[in-house]
Structures are given as C-alpha cells and as structure tokens.
C-alpha cells in the first residue's frame, strides 16, 4: 500500500468565500421554511376546512382552497352549550390573568430589587411548579375542591390555571423590572416620592406594556388549558373541555370549526404581544 499523498486527489484551489456563504444561506432558508411549514400547514388546513361546506370537508379530492361557506361555523355557534362554554372560558381566563399578575408582578419586583436568603431557591421553585405533572395532582385537587365547594366553579379552575401561569408571570415581570435601572427609582425618592409613589409614577408607566403582555400570556395559557378544565368542571365547562367532551362524537366539519374557535384567540393574542415574549426569552427583536 502506498501512502501516496491524499491531498493530491483533492482539487485544492481557492474558492470564493461566497460559496460557503451560499451553502450556509441555503441551509438557513430551508430550515426557516421547514419550521414555518410545521406551524402554518396544520393551521392552514384547519382554516380551510372550517370555511368549507360539510360536503367538501368529507369529500375527495380536495381543492385545498376554502369555499368560504359559513355553514360549519354557523352550525358550531348554534350548537347548544357553545355560547356558555365560550363565556366560561373567557371568565376563567380573565380571572387567571388578574390573579397571576396580582401575585406574579410583586414577586417579580421583589426578585429584581431585593436580596434575600433563599432567592435562588425561590426562583427555581417557581419554575419547578411547571415540572409537576398535572394528572398526578388532578385527583387530590378534585377531592379538595369538592370538599371546599370550589369544584365546577370558574374561580376554582382559575386558581389552578393561575398556578400554571404564575411561573411565566413571575419570570416575565422579573425581567421587566430588572431592565429598569434602580437609579430611576432612587431619583424619584430624592425628588419627593415614597416607595409606592415612585413605583406608580416612574416604574409602572415603564413596565405597563410588558405587564399587559404577560397578562395576555396568562390569559392564553388558561384559554388553551384542557386537562384541569376537563377534570374539575362538569356543568360549567370551558370551551376546551366542552369540545374535548363533545367533538369526538361530532361530525368532522364541526371538529374543524371547534378547533378554529380555540386556536384563533390564542393566535391573535400571542401575535399582539410577541415583542415582549421575545424580550423575555432574550431574543432581540427590533
């Protein structure tokens, strides 16, 4: 065997740097398209089928284009119980939003401004609540709720949803408050404010958009949550629980309409607050 220089077989001539750049560009764009398709194709199919007549939904071949028939939507909206479920969902989500901000924002503020023993553990615990599987909690929770009379109420469900949304509320508001220089507050104190006045006059106006974003995020978490809602409510079902209960025995076009009703508000909300969510995850988006 000869150990002939391998290099001789390789065409070793300088290539423009642009070549490597172009190849990278291709991979980059392909990855973006793939990721977008991953999200957008199911959404597209959902919307197309919602806006098609029942015959088209079940028929074959499919055109892939919506016929803008509102039949499914109309049928879905007149379906008995949908209105009530929508109202329940809204009520629970609003309660969750209010609770998680009222509890989460002060926690976020404390984390950003004060040094106290156990601060790191507290931050970890806040995130850990998300790691606890809800199905494990469901039965004891249901029993406890029945005993206290919280079962099947919007308030009870909102409390559970608040637990789910709280870590995000704490972490988002923590990063919001941490982004505001302490000197602004101190300047306000030297200019005649007490702690509360400084917060209201200086800090609140600066964090308000972010607080609204984190509130909307809590709203979305509650809106989308299905497991606790199914376990803890019977009469006062939220839309998700209602759909899970009823849709698997419903015709296909109705499932699509129900899916759209679930997805649409969440999509709109998340889109509205995307800037703050990006900021929370540390991605600059300017």
């Amino acid at each position, binding site marked *: 065997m000869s150990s002939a220089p391998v290099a001789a077989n390789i065409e070793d001539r300088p290539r423009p740097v642009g070549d490597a750049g172009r190849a990278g560009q291709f991979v980059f764009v392909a990855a973006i398209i793939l990721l977008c398709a991953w999200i957008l194709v199911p959404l597209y199919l959902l919307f197309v089928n919602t806006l098609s007549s029942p015959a088209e939904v079940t028929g074959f071949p499919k055109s892939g284009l919506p016929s803008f028939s509102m039949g499914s939507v109309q049928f879905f909206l007149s379906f008995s119980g949908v209105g009530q479920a929508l109202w329940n969902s809204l009520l629970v989500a609003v309660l969750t939003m209010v609770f998680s901000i009222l509890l989460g924002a002060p926690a976020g503020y404390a984390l950003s401004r004060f040094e106290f023993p156990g601060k790191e553990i507290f931050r970890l615990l806040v995130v850990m609540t998300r790691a606890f599987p809800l199905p494990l909690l469901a039965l004891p929770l249901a029993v406890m709720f029945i005993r206290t009379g919280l079962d099947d109420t919007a308030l009870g469900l909102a409390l559970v949803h608040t637990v789910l949304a709280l870590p995000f509320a704490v972490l988002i508001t923590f990063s919001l408050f941490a982004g505001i220089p302490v*000197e602004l507050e101190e300047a*306000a*104190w*030297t*200019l*005649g*404010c*007490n702690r509360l*006045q400084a917060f209201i006059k200086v800090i609140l106006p*600066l964090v308000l958009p972010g607080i609204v974003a984190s509130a909307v995020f809590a709203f979305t978490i509650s809106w989308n949550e299905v497991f606790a809602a199914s376990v803890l409510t019977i009469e006062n079902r939220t839309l998700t629980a209602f759909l899970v209960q009823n849709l698997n025995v419903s015709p296909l076009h109705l499932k699509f309409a129900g899916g759209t009703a679930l997805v649409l508000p969440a999509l709109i909300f998340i889109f509205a607050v995307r800037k703050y969510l990006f900021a929370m995850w540390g991605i600059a988006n300017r």
Partner: protein
Amino acid sequence: MAEIVIKNVAKSFGAFQALHALDMAIADQEFMVLLGASGCGKTTLLRIIAGLETPTQGEVWIGGRRVDHLPPRQRGISMVFQNYAVFPHLTVFENIAFGLRMQKMGQPEVERRVRRTAELMHIEQLLERYSGQLSGGQRQRVAVARALAMEPDVILMDEPLSNLDALLRLEMRAELKGVLAESKTTTIYVTHDQVEAMSLADRISVMNGGKIVQNDSPVEIYRNPAARFVGSFIGNPPMNFIPAKRTDNGRWAVAGLELDGPRTERELIEFAIRPEDVFPGEEGFVADVRVVEPLGAHTLVTCDVAGKPFRAVLESDRRVSPGETLKLMPAASRIRWFDLDTQTAIPA
C-alpha cells in the same frame, strides 16, 4: 442654612467594611469633593447622606436636624446620578417639574421654575423632548436642572461627569462650578478624577479603604499631602518617592545627595518630591533618561534614579533625549518626608 455633620458613620456589607467610623463636617454653601479610587467608599458615604443607604452606625445631620432615620424625600437634598436617571417616559419639562409637582406646587410656579433652571442649564429648546432624543451631555444637563429646580439645601453628585467625553467634561465642569456657586447650595461631589476634584472643590476629602485620609483645601492637599497615599494619588504624574537614610541628626542621604530633613530618631524614612519641583543643573540626583514625552507646555521625562523610576517635568525648550544623564536638583522648600511605618507625613 445647611451644614452637614457626619458623626461616627460606618457601613459594612456583610463581612466587608465599606466605611470605618467617619467624622466629617461640611459648612453651609461649601463645595466638598469626595475623592478616591473606585471601591474606597466615597459613593457609599454619599448614598448614606442621601438616605439611599442605611449606615451600620453613626449619625447624619443636615442643617441642624438629625436625618439618618428619615427617607430621602424628607432630607432636603437633591441628587444627580452617574447615569443621569432621566425618566424616559416624561418630557424634559416634566422631568424637571417632577419634584415640584410632588410638592403640589401650582402650575404657574412650576412653569417659572422649570423655565428658569432650563435657561440656566441651556436646555430651554429641549423642553418638549424625551430622554431618548437627547445626547449624553444634554441628559446630564437635564439631570442637573431637575436637581436645581428643587432649590434644595444640599446637592449630592455621584460622578456626574464621568460618562461624558473629555471635551464635554471640561466644558460642563466649568459650567457646573458657576451654576452651583450661584445657587448657594451646599454641594457634595463624588469623583475619582483628581483634576475634576482640584478644579471644583472648596475642600477635598481624599478617601482610601473606607477612611478619610486627608480633608483639606485643594492646594494644601496637593502641596502638603498628609499621607503617602495622597501624594501618590494626587498629581499627574504623582509624587516621586526615594528612600532616605539618616547620616546625622537632621541630615539624610537620598540617592547620593545629602539633604536637610526632619530631626527624628528613625533610621530610614522616605523622601518625596513632585515632578515639577526638580530642576536640571550641575548638581543633583544622577538620572538616566529612559523616556521623553513632549506634552507641549512642558516635557515629561521618565528616568532612573538609584535604580527606581523617577519622573520630572521640565521646560519644553530644553532638549533631552533618551540615554542622556541628567543632574536633577529638588527645590528645598518643596521636599516632603514620609514615615515608612505609618505612611504619614513627617513635619520637616
């Protein structure tokens, strides 16, 4: 009337002793500069006076009133922060008016005061702008105007010029001095920049390691440093130090010269001289020139004297080149002596 008295104030952060039982008195309308390297406790002291930090022990008195238990808003102070802390959600006008509105002052009076301080700081054309639309220098002016509009007894400034570029700093320095002198407030000004300290202060407190090393007028601090640290910190370039050995009572051998000095029993002390107080001539320290830096007005020469670096500031019309050997004679009246153990000055 707002003289400030600090009695026995100390501060520790956990095991770290930031301030060691300080005493200080600042007269009404005096311009006091706290000068020191970063970490010397000067900002901590300022924040204790402002009420943003609680002292571990001691008392703070402003205008004859004990204030160390009061929140900042009840102390009759205003503060200018290093990063300006101009409220980004308010216009310049509302920033300056902020403290006045907190006092529930009527709109005409607010208008009058804002316009007047804005004029004083030359920002009257910026009143409708937001902080984001201002340059660093303009923000600085807003911060000072906001403090002045309160017409406080005491203005506290925490390195207010250190974020500005050199030229702007020079300009703002002169302007600040004028404005503050006119406002007749007591001022405490924290800086690590000795030139700033010298040019602004009525009195300088040099701080090191949480203690006040010397508290005196700028000229006194420069001419008669009370401690070796002050001589080595103040002055650009700082003092030269050479060990001195006793030969006779009051006679000291310093790098080959025999000089008159203090009558002390010690065998070894330290000789100190400012770089501009040595003169080339027929006699003096034998100095091997290493580096020559012409600075225009004069020339900075770094040499070796007795194997140690020694800096001299010479007339710029004198031609010196590296490798040359000079004889440098210290001006007798400008020689200072330091005790090697206590690091403090020995009176000659």
